[in-house]
């Protein structure tokens, strides 16, 4: 299934705007993802194991922290979809992976979890990977406009 994609022509100025738009949406995607997962986790840990009934999972959606998490994850879905409308999936995946680092750091800062040397090494590797991909163009189908 090659998804049909029109090749879009961008001027250098458009490319700069595209990069700025991509950075802005990547930040929104990461922040809503980290905050949404944290709120959802807090709520689900307060509720405890909801059992295997789908109804109990639906009931859990009305817990304040779970509801806040769902609202943030709706924001994540919307910004992720917008980002995917111009950027490649193979670009969006690594660039937004910085969320794993932020989740570990949030655990260190807000939950007083210890970050071991192994975890710091992991954080360094993820940051290196994100930086490597982030410096490249977000879309492999974007071409300079012929002049």
């Amino acid at each position, binding site marked *: *299934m*090659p*998804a*049909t*994609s*029109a090749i*879009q022509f961008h001027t250098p100025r458009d490319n700069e705007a595209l990069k700025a738009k991509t950075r802005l949406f990547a930040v929104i995607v990461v922040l809503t993802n980290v905050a949404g*997962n*944290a709120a*959802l*986790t807090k709520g*689900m*840990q307060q*509720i*405890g*194991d*909801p059992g295997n009934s*789908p109804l109990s*999972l639906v009931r*859990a959606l009305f817990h304040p922290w*779970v509801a806040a998490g769902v609202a943030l*994850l709706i924001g994540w*879905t919307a910004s*992720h*979809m*917008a980002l*995917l*409308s*111009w950027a*490649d*999936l*193979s*670009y*969006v*995946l*690594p660039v937004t*992976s910085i969320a*794993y*680092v932020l*989740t*570990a750091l949030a*655990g260190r800062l807000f939950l007083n*979890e210890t970050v071991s040397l*192994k*975890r710091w*090494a*992991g*954080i*360094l*590797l*993820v*940051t*290196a*990977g*994100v930086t*490597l*991909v982030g*410096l*490249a163009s977000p879309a*492999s189908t974007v071409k300079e406009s012929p002049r």
Partner: protein
Amino acid sequence: MIWLLVAIQVVSQTIGEVFRAAGMRQHGEIRDFRPGALGRAVGAIARNKWIIGSFCAMAVAFFSFMKLVAIAPVSFAVPVSAATLIPETILARVMLRERVDWRRWTGISLIAAGVYFIA
């Protein structure tokens, strides 16, 4: 039980995100963020079959994640979802025909290794 939930989440999230990318590529770049234009875009996107499939798969991923964080520590539940990175990149190359150059493969590999250490 935990590993069954992880398997369900990884498979459904991989399908969901690849379908989402296919649907959004079909729709094209969102350039106009004024409310009226956004409303029209949402209307068109909501009728896209890839996006409808993506929402079904992501709903399964979401409820399995809800159940997972209720019974497993978040320091396990969140990084384990990075198991989707490699299959999604392969599907982006094969299904979406994206040009995945050495930089992206190296980046993805570094991230997958890093997430393994974080978990």
